[in-house]
């Protein structure tokens, strides 16, 4: 059964926005009620509603409107349809990116640029006989040939397509996957599991040296919540489900997983497991490895799963940890039992302004020491604070703008904060109303000791909103000669300030040394706190006008930045994973023996390298 593009277009037309049901205290920053239910659409051809060469939904993007003002289109997000008056100036002053110098993307994929598929006829026949849907339509294949690294998106914008999967299959359940993997083993084709496609580690790139037929195994049809166990507070879910669908479906029953990675609009449960994902509210709910109770994975050796759902076991090394972070090299995760929690009664955003980044980090450290971190606490450096400022939508009333002015006056003049040094922490509290208020006070009291001033809910909320739209912003940048990306690490507390300073400075220096003509944006934020350290995110972008090979320059700088991270005691990755982008550092990261252990598992589980995406090892 092959779906035609026409059919899905019809479905699209008839599809209604999924009901704005969920819970009344819905807090999500992209408004649920406007989201098309991806599941109902049976999203075979995601490119119908999502960009094939950029981030997110087709209808949502930053543009400069007729008046030359920045505007965010669509209706999905709180920012949608709003004018952002400060953005254009910010783009010009930060990057020197002016509207005159435009680098628009190729609007439509030229399918003739896509290599014709190398099909393994026997495998195709096998799949046909099982009735599992498949396609070798160029658009379907291109969509599943990449993640969202700059070097993956940038060529697509120019209409350049590299090696893409030869075929896409859509198993609908665990058994379909078992059949697919068996066929793949039998006929020696290469399988690359595909969940949400939000990878930023080159994990989805087809290895150019692969000569076998490459089949993309799209898990999107395995998207059901199979059962909810209220006694044990667990839910059994098919691993292809997309984050926002999972939350919405659980919300309907009054529950949530609380796992909210920044990509949750598009990323899948299986992808989270395969990369050791981390959610913004991990302080309450834990990271993915804390959330899973049971995992079922189909490997070329057979199916791996535990025999019970005991909350903790002492049964040798935890086999889940071979699966968590395996990045699609061992098999396909098909079903996961996850912990769930009742939807919290009350949520409150907040923000604190610190006179400088050092004080902010000291405050976060103290919060972690006292183990009183809110659901989320993030600290932006000064550049990001300014960036956040530039993304303020047009204020509707004179009164708000007057209030803004007053706030600014109070902080900079009255409190003596230097606008070019101050930084902001954004907070999200969750739980019983009373406890939240109590908790909030505790955190603000600590902040006060470090010179922090409470700066209101709005600023906090806007900070979290930026998380979802920032990825869209990169597309705007690329329209005007600006390329950039983010990358992350985790680092012990005593190293946080050093790593932030050194990596940012290294980026600036490398750009200069490599002939970048404009001052780059090099900024960071602390996004997670742990007992023994923190997760740090770096954002890096520059105007590439005047460079003949911007991607190469970009790659070199990012490489240098990663070297700097490692030299400063940072980890290779906190939650993005290794993929192919960072695998050159795996050996020094886990030692020879460690790498050997991983290799021996791979050799046992998948001796013929059926799961041949060549990530990690």
């Amino acid at each position, binding site marked *: 059964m092959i779906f035609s593009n026409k059919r899905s277009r019809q479905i699209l037309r008839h599809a209604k926005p999924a009901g704005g049901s969920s819970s009344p205290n819905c807090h999500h920053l992209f408004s649920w009620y406007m989201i098309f239910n991806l599941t109902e659409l049976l999203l075979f051809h995601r490119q119908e509603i999502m960009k094939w060469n950029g981030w997110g939904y087709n209808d949502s993007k930053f543009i400069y409107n007729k008046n030359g003002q920045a505007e965010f289109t669509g209706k999905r997000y709180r920012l949608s349809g709003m004018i952002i008056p400060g953005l254009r100036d910010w783009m010009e002053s930060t990057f020197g990116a002016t509207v005159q110098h435009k680098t628009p993307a190729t609007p439509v994929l030229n399918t003739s640029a896509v290599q014709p598929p190398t099909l393994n006829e026997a495998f195709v026949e096998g799949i046909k006989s099982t009735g599992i849907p498949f396609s070798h339509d160029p658009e379907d294949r291109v969509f599943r040939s990449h993640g969202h690294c700059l070097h993956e998106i940038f060529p697509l914008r120019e209409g350049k397509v590299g090696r893409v999967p030869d075929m896409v299959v859509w198993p609908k359940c665990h058994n379909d996957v078992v059949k697919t993997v068996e066929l793949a083993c039998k006929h020696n084709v290469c399988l690359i599991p595909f969940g949400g496609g939000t990878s930023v580690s080159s994990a989805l790139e087809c290895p150019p040296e692969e000569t076998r037929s490459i089949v993309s195994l799209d898990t999107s049809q395995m998207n059901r919540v199979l059962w909810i166990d209220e006694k044990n507070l667990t839910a059994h879910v098919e691993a292809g489900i997309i984050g926002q669908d999972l939350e919405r479906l659980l919300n309907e029953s009054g529950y949530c997983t609380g796992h909210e990675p920044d990509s949750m609009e598009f990323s899948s449960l299986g992808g989270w497991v395969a990369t050791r994902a981390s959610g913004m509210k991990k302080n309450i709910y834990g990271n993915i490895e804390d959330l899973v109770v049971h995992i079922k994975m189909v490997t070329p050796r057979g199916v791996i799963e535990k025999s019970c759902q005991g909350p903790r076991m002492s049964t040798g090394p935890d086999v889940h940890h071979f699966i968590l972070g395996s990045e699609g090299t061992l098999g396909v995760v098909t079903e996961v039992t996850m912990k769930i929690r009742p939807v919290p009664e009350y949520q409150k955003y907040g923000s604190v302004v610190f006179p400088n980044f050092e004080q902010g980090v000291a405050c976060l450290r103290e919060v972690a020491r006292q183990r009183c971190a809110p659901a989320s606490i993030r600290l932006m450096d000064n550049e990001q604070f300014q960036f956040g400022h530039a993304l303020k939508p047009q204020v509707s009333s004179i009164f708000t703008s007057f209030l803004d002015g007053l706030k600014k006056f109070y902080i900079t003049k009255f409190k003596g904060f230097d606008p070019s040094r101050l930084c902001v922490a954004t907070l999200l509290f969750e739980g019983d109303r009373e406890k939240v208020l109590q908790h909030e006070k505790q955190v603000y009291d600590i902040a006060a000791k470090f010179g922090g001033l409470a700066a209101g809910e709005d600023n906090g909320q806007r900070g979290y909103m930026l998380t979802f739209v920032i990825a869209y912003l990169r597309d705007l940048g690329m329209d005007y000669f600006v390329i950039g990306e983010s990358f992350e690490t985790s680092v012990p507390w*005593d*190293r946080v300030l*050093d*790593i932030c*300073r*050194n990596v940012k*400075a*290294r980026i600036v220096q490398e750009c200069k040394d490599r002939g970048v003509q404009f001052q780059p944006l090099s900024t960071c934020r602390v996004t997670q706190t742990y007992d023994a350290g923190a997760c740090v995110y770096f954002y890096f972008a520059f105007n590439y006008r005047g460079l003949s090979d911007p991607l190469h320059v970009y790659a070199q700088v990012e490489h240098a930045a990663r070297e700097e991270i*490692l*030299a*400063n*005691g940072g980890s290779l990755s906190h939650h993005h994973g290794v993929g192919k982008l960072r695998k050159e550092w795996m050996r*020094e990261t886990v030692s020879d023996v460690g790498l050997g252990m991983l290799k021996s598992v791979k050799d046992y589980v998948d001796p013929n390298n059926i799961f041949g995406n060549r990530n990690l090892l």
Partner: protein
Amino acid sequence: MASRAVYVHRDPMLKKRDDFEDILEERRHSSDLRYALKCYTPVLYKGLSPCRASELKSMVLQSDQLQYVINQVSKEMGRTAEEVQAEASTILDEMAHRLQISTVRFFAFTLSKIFKTLFRSICVNEEGIQRLQQAIHEHPVILLPSHRSYMDFLLMSYVLYTYDLSVPVIAAGMDFMGMKIVGEMLRMSGAFFIRRSFGGDKLYWAVFSEYVQIMVKSGFAPVEFFLEGTRSRTAKSLTPKLGLLNIVIDPFLKGEVFDISLVPVSISYERVLEEALYARELLGVPKPKESTSGLFKARKVLSEDYGSIHIYFGQPVSVRALAEGKVNRCQFNLTPRHIPRKPGEEIQSFVNDLAYRLVRSQEENMVLTPWVLLAFLLLQNQAVGNERGMSLDELTEQAAWVRDLSRQFGAFLHWPDQLPPSKVVSSSLSLHRGLVRISDGRVQLALEMPHSAMTSEEELLNRAVIILSCASYRNQALHLFIRPALLAVAIQAASSNKKQEVYNSFSFLWNMFSNEFILCPGAAVQDFEEACYLLVKSGALQISQQEILVSGRGHRTLAFLANILDPFLEGYQMVCRFLYEATEGLTEKQFVPAVRKFIIKHLLTGRLRYAEVLSSDLQKNALAALLRLGAVQKLKGCQGALKVNKVIVNSLEDTLGKKQAVSRSLNTHGLFLDLDKNSKLILVSVSQRRKAAHSEGSRRSTLIPTR
């Protein structure tokens, strides 16, 4: 020579150097008082959060590093932490500077007055100042001046104040603190005082390193110290000391700062204030203790003309750029950074290379005056026993020849080309009239005529004072000639003109003299190549794949160069002879006086050509080399008693003495001097040598056959 590194020669003549500006010029024309009271707003390190000298103290005492050591010491010694803390605080009080702008202004005023009487000019390369200013803004800066005179650090602060740059904090020896008021004044102008030795004192080390590192990390002010550790009495650069360098680059290696700029500064004096003082010291007259009254007595120096000073601020060296690929900074990932630990081998060798590199760049930017070249000629002439001296014309002709040679070797020579050479020569001679005598148009060193009232030993020492003073000027340019000179001697000594043979004997000399001159450890091959390159370029040598041939006009060059090493060869030889004849139980302490006595005896018999061998510096260096090479060992627990390997010392003496014989006809006894795996000298038989050479391939290149 298997490890022939890719070594790119840059023509030293093309080395670009900045122009100088005389900063005294303005002082002679405008008010010193107004200058001292000028508006002074130096640029600061951009990441600096402002702090005062007094705040530094509490930062140091509360630092994790120091607290850790305090706890450790209190556990080990069974003392309370408070006691140890109090001791740390005392140490810090004794050490810390109290930089005050008013004192700086006072110095600015008085030094202006003094400098104007002492010196004709103080020339500074202003482009270097601009580079420094930029560097201070971007990263913490370490100033590394050469050290030839007490004047050095006063001058440095004076220059920086003049150019509106932050006055540095300066690591000074404790001996200055003895000078009552002056010590405190220096403290208030930015000097901090460190004990000369504190090897075992953990607490002292911790306070000291933390104090320095906090100043580096905070970018409080540029930190200044002398790589050579002490003033060079011979005007040769001293082997760099690594302790402080290790401390200041540590914050970079541990990621506490993004980068550190090291700025080598070359200060060259046309005439050193301490000229005769140094010579006496080298001859065994002890150095006078620093005292304020001594300073006043030294006033008479004020009436003399000390010519010009050139201060060259070199290119800032980025520690980050140099460490790239050499030091794996991940090594600090697994232990908390505040726990002190000894630097590993990788870091040690990096710091060592770095130190040598910096000293070499100090050397390269030393301004040489014509007098320095004249000193070569006068000393060489004196040594051949020419009692009548040289005629002025002859000296001028030779000086012009050496000038051209030194330029080809990349000398930073200030030779006024607009003047006729004879003018240049005579004006140089007149500035140094204490050292030369001109009569009947003939020039020679101002050695005193035999005098009946003096013992022959006194007479000898008096002559030696003049010769060593003169040698200290010659030494200013030794760095320029040392590699070609080693090659020149190696060519003379090699049994054939095969390149490998020449290299072997070069490498032997190179090893022997690496405590005497700045020869970067492990760079023998590079130095050999550099020497070859320079001599080929100057037309003295022709080098083919296999052979090294001396060209017709090369003989003069090679003879000149080989002569430069002669006093050193003779000195090392004497030290070997002395050790060979020395009685059991000689201690390191007794070594210098004993060897001096021994040498005086030999000098008086007239068997030695060079009074220079009386220099205790040379003697100490020779001993250090022999210790390094294992020919002499220090016995543990015997008050530094020395155990001499007489056989080796004896064959070394032979080898050094008969240059010709270094590797010719020496196989008769079947024994070779060789270096073992740890770079120690050993004697091996032919068969052993062959075996070793066979098993290790051609990596070993230092085989020296001996009789």
